[in-house]
């Protein structure tokens, strides 16, 4: 066990060092925007994870390379730690404004910023950011200091690709350990034989696409600060906004339609992006997941459009198309940008329940594995659907028949098919179980009669799918403390596809004598 502690401690130290580096980079924002009062808080926020990470790394630097078990615990504990320590800028800047910083001019406190003086709210925001969820504890993002607007965006941008991917890319270490960690962060496909080269290429693609997204949004009419923030969170399928009513604030058809391909880009796997940039455009339709990104989004949007136009709140076909298409893509890519809010039209939480459930289904399935999107992932849904069809058809064949299951141009024999089917089924069952348990918990803790079952199911699916769309439940005052803690857990397990978190919890309970 000591060996395991050393391996996990060493890699956790690296992750914390990387987090400290991210906070240090963010010092540029308060300097450029003249928010000098935020500097001491940001420096302290960076030094804490840097110091802990440095101590852990120095103490255990000779530890063995991680195996699959260690990889899962590093992933689970790493994401949890990043959520905790990433909350420091929220917490300390909010307290800096509350108490005033000697020698600096501090702005007046706002109710929105004051919410972050509660540590739980700050941790919620940080976890929501890093997991790419986008549910928020802010009432009005516009009044936040630019430093915190940036930090929210930056957490989602980094979290979209992955904290471990970042750590591997920057603090690379040769050997098999990096591959194990890479795979533990819900990724499997490599772009190059070398894992360090793979993660660097992922970042290369992600950064290039970020520039494209920012410029496209700016050309569509968004101010540059909004374009930078929304380009980053849109591509990362995170969904944090810097405006009070998310994308609805702009009330622009052009911006809505420019964001749709940006969100879609984020929900396509990085290896496919790489092949497309290499000139292999066939991957748009030859790759099963990418084909289904378009097919599934198209079908879902069409169904939602029909619900919203023929039996729903919108009077013109175009209005139903504009809001239906955007909200389904936003949900299914797990971005969580909202255009359907009360200020401009009909809020999502007041859509007919069947329309809300259509969006919930989109959040449940999510985007492609290996992308920035959440949910159970398209490949799992397809494996499950094909596997069920395979199992049912089995009855009609003689026992001696040799059958193969074809998934994504791979022909699987009975054993392989059974293994992949079982893995997909386990994830879906676990995902559904936690969704139901979370829904029960929220129904018990929310004021009775205030929210419908569709509202609650929607919100829990949004947290667990790392989506961030809200039916109006999440907020510093509207969500009870138990609900906030439950959502922290949902966001965490959703980002890591549940298993690593369960492995870590089992290890902790077993070590503590609770579980035998």
């Amino acid at each position: 066990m000591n060996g395991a502690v050393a391996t996990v401690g060493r890699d956790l130290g690296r992750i914390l060092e990387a987090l400290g580096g991210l906070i240090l980079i963010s010092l540029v924002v308060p300097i450029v925007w003249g928010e000098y009062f935020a500097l001491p808080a940001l420096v302290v926020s960076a030094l804490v994870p840097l110091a802990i990470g440095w101590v852990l790394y120095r103490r255990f630097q000779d530890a063995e390379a991680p195996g699959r078990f260690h990889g899962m615990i590093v992933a689970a504990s790493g994401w949890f730690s990043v959520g905790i320590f990433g909350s420091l800028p929220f917490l300390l800047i909010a307290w800096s404004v509350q108490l005033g910083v000697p020698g600096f001019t501090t702005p007046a406190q706002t109710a929105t910023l004051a919410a972050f003086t509660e540590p739980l709210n700050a941790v919620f925001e940080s976890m929501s950011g890093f997991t790419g969820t986008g549910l928020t504890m802010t009432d009005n993002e516009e009044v936040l200091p630019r430093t915190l607007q940036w930090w929210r965006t930056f957490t989602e941008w980094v979290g979209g690709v992955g904290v471990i991917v970042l750590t591997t890319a920057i603090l690379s270490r040769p050997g098999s350990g990096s591959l194990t960690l890479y795979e533990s962060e819900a990724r499997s496909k490599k772009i190059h034989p070398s894992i360090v080269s793979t993660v660097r290429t992922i970042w290369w693609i992600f950064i290039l696409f970020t520039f494209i997204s920012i410029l496209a949004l700016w050309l569509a009419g968004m101010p540059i600060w909004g374009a930078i923030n929304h380009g980053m969170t849109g591509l990362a399928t995170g969904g944090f906004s810097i405006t009070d009513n998310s994308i609805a604030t702009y009330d622009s058809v052009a911006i809505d339609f420019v964001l749709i391909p940006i969100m879609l880009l984020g929900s396509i796997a990085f290896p496919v992006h790489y092949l497309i940039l290499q000139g292999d455009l066939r991957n748009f339709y030859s790759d099963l997941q990418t084909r289904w990104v378009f097919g599934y989004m198209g079908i879902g949007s069409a169904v939602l459009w029909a619900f919203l136009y023929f039996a729903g709140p919108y009077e013109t076909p175009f209005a139903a198309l504009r809001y239906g298409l955007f909200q389904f893509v936003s949900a299914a890519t797990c971005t969580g940008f909202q255009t359907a809010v009360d200020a401009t039209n009909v809020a999502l939480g007041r859509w007919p329940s069947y329309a809300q459930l259509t969006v919930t289904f989109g959040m449940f399935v999510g985007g492609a594995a290996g992308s920035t999107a959440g949910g159970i992932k398209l490949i799992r849904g397809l494996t499950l659907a094909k596997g069920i069809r395979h199992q049912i058809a089995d009855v009609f064949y003689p026992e001696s028949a040799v059958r193969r299951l074809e998934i994504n141009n791979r022909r699987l024999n009975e054993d392989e098919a059974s293994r992949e089917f079982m893995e997909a089924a386990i994830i879906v069952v676990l995902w559904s179980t936690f969704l139901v348990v979370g829904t029960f918990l929220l129904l018990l803790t929310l004021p009775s009669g205030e929210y419908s079952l569709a509202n609650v199911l929607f919100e829990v699916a949004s947290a667990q799918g790392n989506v961030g769309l809200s039916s109006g439940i999440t907020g510093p005052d509207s969500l009870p403390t138990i609900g906030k803690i439950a959502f922290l857990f949902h966001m965490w397990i959703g980002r890591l596809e549940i298993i690593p978190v369960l492995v870590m919890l089992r290890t902790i309970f077993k070590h503590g004598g609770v579980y035998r």
Partner: protein
Amino acid sequence: MSAVFEAGADDRIFDFLLLVGPLVIGLIVVLGRSLVTEAVAIAYIAAFLGYTLYRGVRPKLSNTG
């Protein structure tokens, strides 16, 4: 610089776009919205899309040629 050239799509045009991206955004931040900055942004996106499509159809063109 060497890290940029070593990673990515192994293509100098895409590497160039990646390197000038921050400069284009910086230009927009400094100069604001104007005909010049809009033209630069359009050129950047057009270069990316055009070159991606060109790389996609180039093998077909050379095969037919």
